[in-house]
C-alpha cells in the first residue's frame, strides 16, 4: 500500500492503494470516475486514454506510483464548464454508435489538436490509430474533425 499525491481533474488527491495499481483502476474503482473505460488492459486499444500533464496517455499502462505530483485530466473534466469544440463536432457528425470507445478517442483527439492545431488529416489518422472502435465509426470521426469543421482550434 502506498500513498500517492497528485492532481486529478483540478483537485489535489491523496490515493492509498497498491503502488502498481494502474491509474485506470484508481479512477474507476477509487474515485468512481467511470468515463475512462477498460477494454484490453495491454495498451492496445486506447479506451482508457486520459491526459497526464497535457499528454494523451493510456491509463491502463500507467502505475499510480509512477505519476506522483502529476496533473491528470479525465473525460468528465473536459466538459465541466461547457462542451468542448471537439465534443460538439463529434455530436454534430453523429459519430457514436455504442459509444464505449468514444471517450478514449475524444481524449486522444483533444490532446492531438491541443499540441498541434494545424494537424493534417493524414497525421490525425495515423495518430488516432492507437484507438480501436469495433462499431466502425472511424470515417465519421475523420468527417467530424475535417469535413464538418475544417478548422479545429
Amino acid at each position: 500500500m502506498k500513498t500517492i499525491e497528485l492532481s486529478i481533474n483540478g483537485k489535489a488527491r491523496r490515493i492509498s492503494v497498491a503502488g502498481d495499481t494502474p491509474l485506470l483502476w484508481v479512477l474507476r474503482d477509487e474515485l468512481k470516475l467511470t468515463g475512462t473505460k477498460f477494454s484490453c488492459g495491454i495498451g492496445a486499444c486506447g479506451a482508457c486514454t486520459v491526459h497526464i500533464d497535457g499528454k494523451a496517455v493510456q491509463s491502463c499502462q500507467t502505475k499510480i506510483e509512477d505519476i506522483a505530483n502529476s496533473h491528470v485530466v479525465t473525460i468528465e473534466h473536459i466538459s465541466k464548464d461547457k462542451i468542448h469544440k471537439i465534443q460538439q463536432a463529434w455530436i454534430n457528425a453523429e459519430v457514436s454508435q455504442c459509444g464505449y470507445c468514444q471517450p478514449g478517442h475524444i481524449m486522444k483527439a483533444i490532446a492531438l489538436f491541443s499540441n498541434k492545431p494545424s494537424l493534417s488529416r493524414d497525421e490525425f489518422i495515423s495518430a488516432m490509430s492507437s484507438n480501436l472502435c469495433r462499431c466502425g465509426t472511424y470515417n465519421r470521426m475523420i468527417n467530424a474533425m475535417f469535413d464538418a469543421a475544417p478548422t479545429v482550434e
Partner: protein
Amino acid sequence: MNTNISINRRQFMKLSLASAATFGIGFSATGCSEVASGKGDAIIFNLWLEIAKDSSITVIVPEIDMGQGVHKALSMLIAEELDVDFENLRIRHASFAEGYRGIHTGGSTSIRSNWSAFRKAGAIARQMLIKSAALKWNVDESECLTAKGYVQLRDASKKIPYGDLVDTAQTLDLPDNVTLKSPVDFSVIGKNIPHFHTKEKVTGEFQYGIDFETPDMLVAVIRRCPVFGGTLSDFDDAKTRKLDGVEDVVKFGNKVAVLSKSYWISKKGADLLDIKWDTKGFDSLSTRSIRAELASQLPSVIQTTNDKQLEAVYEVPFQAHATMEPLSCVAYVRDGEADVWAATQSTEIALREVAQNVLNSAERFIEKMKSKMSDSRNIDNIRIHPLYPGGGFGRRLEQDFVVEAVLISKAVGKPVKTIWSREDDLMHGAYRAMGMIKASGELGENGYPKSWRFHLASTNTRRGFVDAHQRSYSIDKFEHTESEVQTLVPAGYWRSVGNSVYAFYSECFLDEMAKTSSIDPLEYRLTLLAGKSRQLAVLKKCGELFDWNKPLAQGRGKGIAYYEAYGSYIAMMVEVSIQNQGVKIEKIVSTIDCGIPVDPKNIESQVEGGIIFGLTATIKSAITLKNGRVEQSNFDNFPLIRMNEIPSIQVHVIPSMEAVGGVGELSVPIVAPAVVNAINNATGKQLRKLPIKAEDLV
C-alpha cells in the same frame, strides 16, 4: 392517402399504471380477451408509451440498443404518429414488473417487429388526446388538430398540452379505428434527426453494464480452465488470501473466483492462485484436428450430366465478437430472490437461466405451472435489469456471464460484480462456427448455372442459421445440406450468424462460375436477377456509384457481392491493389434497399460499421485452437481493423416506400466475398479460405 386501421381491443389497451399519473398505451402480443387488472395476471401487455401530466413522454422500448440505433428509430415512430417533438422524448427499457414478457434483441428485427405496434400506439394515443380535448371544449373532434405535443382548435384559439388531457384520456375507451400517416406525409421517419444520448456518450456520462454499482458490492475475477472440457482438480489460494484487500475465494463448478472491493486486487489475487486443471483427453483439440473432421464430411461430387461442372472447397474459421465493453454482471442473490443488472441482449433468456440457478426445483415447478396458466413470464422474486452494452454483436445473447455472477453471489450472500478481461473474452467466447464447404454446380451452354449445390460441414448448425438459402437468382436447381462436427468449443450468434458463412461461399462460387464462362460478374448477377426490380436496382446503383465498367490499372482488381436477408437487399463492390506487404483495399461502395428507411444516417452508419466489422474477419483475424485452447488472447494477437487501415467507404441508401427490412447485420456477410472476389480478380488466383493473409498473395 392515410391508412385507416381498425383496432383490435384485445390487442391494444390503455393502461392506468400504478402511479395513476400517466396515460399509457399497451399492446398485447398474445391477444387474450380478458382485461388485465394491473401487473400482468391474465394478459401480458407490452407497453409502448406513457404520457405524464407534465406532458413528458416516455417511450418504453422492448429492445436493447447496443449502438445499432433502435432506441432512436423506435422513438421516431412514436414521435411521428403521436405528433410530438422528438427531443422531448425519454426512453426506458421495458421491464417484467410492468407485465412485459422479456426483451430479446437480435436478428435485425427491432424495427420490423415493432413497426406496426409502435405506429398504432402513437396514433391511438393521439386520437384519444384529440377526443379528450374535444370533450373538454365541447366541440366536435373534427374541430381539433394536434401540433407537436398540443391539441388545438383549427383556428388556434384554444390550445392545450397533452399532459393536461391525461386525466380525461384515462377515462375513454379505445377508438374503433385509427388513422396512420401516409409515408408521403412523414416529417420524422426518414428524416435526419439528431441522436439523443449522443451528448452523454461524448462526455463520459453514459453508463454501460461495466459501470454499474450497488452498495457493498464485491468485484469478482474468475479463473476458468483454458482447455474446453477440462476440469478443476485442485487449487492453492494461500498466496491469494495473503494479498491485502482480498476478501474471499470461491470455488463454483470448475471455476474459481477471487473477490475484493476492486478489480485490480481481485485480478492480482486471481493471478496468485495456483490452480491444477485436469485436461487429459481434451488437450488434443485443435483447428487442424477439427478441420480434418470437417473435411471428412464433405461429399464427393458425382458427374451426372454432360454439362460443364465446377467444384470448389471453401473454409471459414471460428470468429469472436470482441465487443469493446468486456462482459460484466452485477448480481445479488438472497433467500431465493435475485436482482441482476447486466448489459444483456436478452432479459428473457437471462430470466430463465437465473431462475434455473436460483430457485430450487419445487419453486421452479410452481413457476412453470404458473407460466402455463397465465402466459406470464413474470417471476416476481427474480428481477433482470437491462443495462446499455458497449457493443453486442450477438455475444450478449449468451447468458454465461450472468449465470457466473449469480452463482458467486448465491455462494457469498452479497452483491457481486464480475468483470471479464479481454483475455477472458477471447478465450472463453461463444464463437461463430468453423466450417468447410463443398460447392458444386453445372453450367448451361450459355454459361449460366443450371444448378448449384452446397454442403456445409460446421461445428455448430443451430447457431448458424441463414435467413433464406434460396435467393432471387433464377437458377433451376438449388440444394443446400449441412452436417455437424461436435466439439466442446462454445458456439454463439455472431453478427449475421449463418449468413456470414453462406454469403462467402455462395457469392464466391457464383463468381467462379462467371469467370469460367468469361462473363462479367455484375452482368452475370443482373441476368440471374432479371425481372426482379428491387434486386436489379440495388446492383445497378452500386455499379453506377462504383463506376464498375471503368478499366483498372495494373495490379488492381475489383469484386462484387450481392445478398438478401432480413427483408432487405444489399450490393457491394470493392477495389483492391496488390502491394508488397499484402492487399490494400482501396475503395468499397455499397447500396442498400431496406424498405422505408426510418433513420437514414444511422442506416449508413450500420452498413459502414458492418463493413469494418466484416473486414477484420476477412483480412485480419480469426480464432484458432491448439492443445485444446484458443490461441488468441488480446488485441495483440487478435487485432482489429484500425483507422489507418480503412478504405474509402461509400454507402447509399435507396429511397423506398416498401416494407421495412432489417439493417443491423446486413453488410457483414458480403464483405468477405466482395473482397475475395476482388483479390482473385487482381491476382488471377482463386482464394477460398478466410481470413486472407499476406502470405496468401505471394
